[in-house]
């Protein structure tokens, strides 16, 4: 059963085509990685899936239901949780309050149940020491972690993670991988955009490569990493 289906999705900003006829099927419970050079249109694809922007043509289906015209809010309620590549915290709210917004509005939890779920996510993502700090004062790394935690708080069936592993120390990276694996183990479907390939590849089963808005290829991690076309794009850019 596919949880997400993209049918020849296209989006242009003026003369620049950023998403070019992308079709994709993501199975419930799988973990998919998205790679591609800067400006390839990866984050735009997330915006299309989460409903923050509307495609020029094509369709987005969640659990077989066409949500192309649905608002971001409706898609959260349909089970899509997202993080932003550039963190967008509610800066005058604390970390805990940020998560409470997501848990109560997106996750549909109430009162003590919402608090409980937020506390366990705070624990899981290592935000415990700053739980009551205003999120506007956090470091970039902490804000990225907050992005992950807030997306988790909406209790998503499908979570979209946009570059959350950059700039971590080895130890932090190991912890992050562990967290994402545990989300995956709970049955959550994961789509993860990431330049830190060793982190990405230790979690995902499939990789999709985007280049100039087009889907270059999608397949098993090994298959994709060894494909000549991918090596060409990535050689000299970053590995």
């Amino acid at each position, binding site marked *: 059963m596919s949880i997400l289906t993209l049918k020849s999705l296209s989006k242009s900003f003026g003369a620049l085509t950023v998403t070019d006829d992308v079709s994709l099927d993501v199975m419930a419970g799988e973990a998919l990685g998205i790679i591609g050079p800067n400006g390839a249109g990866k984050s735009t694809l997330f915006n299309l899936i989460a409903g923050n922007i509307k495609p020029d043509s094509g369709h987005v289906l969640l659990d077989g239901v066409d949500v192309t015209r649905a608002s971001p809010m409706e898609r959260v309620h349909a089970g899509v949780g997202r993080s932003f590549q550039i963190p967008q915290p509610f800066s005058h709210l604390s970390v805990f*309050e940020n998560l409470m*917004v997501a848990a109560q509005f997106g996750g549909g939890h109430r009162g003590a149940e919402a608090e409980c779920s937020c506390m366990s996510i705070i624990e899981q993502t290592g935000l415990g020491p700053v739980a009551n700090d205003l999120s506007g004062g956090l470091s970039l790394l902490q804000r990225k972690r907050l992005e992950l935690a807030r997306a988790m708080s909406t209790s998503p069936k499908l979570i979209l993670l946009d570059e959350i592993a950059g700039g971590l120390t080895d130890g932090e990276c190991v912890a992050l991988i562990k967290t994402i694996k545990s989300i995956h183990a709970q049955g959550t479907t994961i789509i993860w955009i990431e330049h830190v390939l060793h982190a990405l590849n230790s979690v995902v089963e499939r990789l999709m490569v985007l280049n100039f808005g087009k889907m270059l290829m999608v397949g098993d991690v090994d298959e994709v990493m060894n494909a000549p076309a991918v090596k060409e794009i990535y050689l000299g850019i970053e590995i």
Partner: protein
Amino acid sequence: MLDQKTINRILMAFGIVGVALLFAVPIIGSRAMVQDLFGVLTLLILAQNWNLLAGFAGLVSVGQQAFVGVGAYAMFACVILLGLDPLVGILVGGFVAMALAVPMAFFAFRLAGAYFAIGTWVVAEIVRLCFAQWKALGGGTGTSLPKGTTKNMFGVPEIKELLGVSSSAASDALTYWLALVLALATLGAGYFFLRSRMGLGLQAIRDNDEAARSVGVNPTRLKAWVFMLTAFGTGICGALLFIQITRVTPEAAFSVLDWTAFVIFITVIGGIGTLPGPIVGVVFFYILQRALSDYGTVYLIVLGSIGIIVMLFARRGLWGLFSDKTGIELLSLRQYAPETKPNPLAQIK
């Protein structure tokens, strides 16, 4: 340095003594004082409502006089046309104002920012013109409450007996107490609303609309709720105001200066987006008014200048300034992770 507990106790004591004194004013104070404070309290109620609307929901309305006017006229209609007690009219006024908020939101919510402000003003003007056509309530020249209405109002004879004062003084005392209760209720309701799930959602929208939508918050729905609830509060206050004034005209009931401009000034000076802000603002406004009321237009120029200075140099108003300097937060909206909860009523940053 004072510790948290002591500050909480001192503030609590001040609050209780202050409220008790305010309740005692009709018993121990002069009638002029009662009337004066009635004006202050009703301005405070209007400012609290506008603060919720503009300071927390980001809806900068310049048309709140529509709800004051509609509330006032609804109350007059209840008394004159239906023969009901004015106190019943107050409640009706609130609900009629809320009913007006529905079509008004439908129109104004399509407009953003400055256009929203202008749109609400335009609607208020249209509503005023409509009420000026209502012949049964005096049309353009307005009308008065029938003789004896306030004397026989529910509760007035008892107060008269109890305090041993004239009927009109008793009626002033009653409207004063109602205003005081309404101001306290508005403060309490605002506090609990903002600390609720909906209040948290509003604060999220204020910080980042896009991210709020992406975690499932529906900004339009939340803002519509605040618009309706504050219309109710403003309508009730309008009805109460005109029971005390006893005479209504379209100009007075829908006055943008009296019921919106001064109210905006009070909220901005005191601290927009903070709960104590309107209280600080109304005290400041009252003092200014007393000091400058003999100077006519100069008074308005001074008010405007002070407003601009505060907007430029103390964006969170006098209360924000005080709070930043001392670290004292009152009626804080912060929600703490379980196990780490300090007293939510007052704390030091």
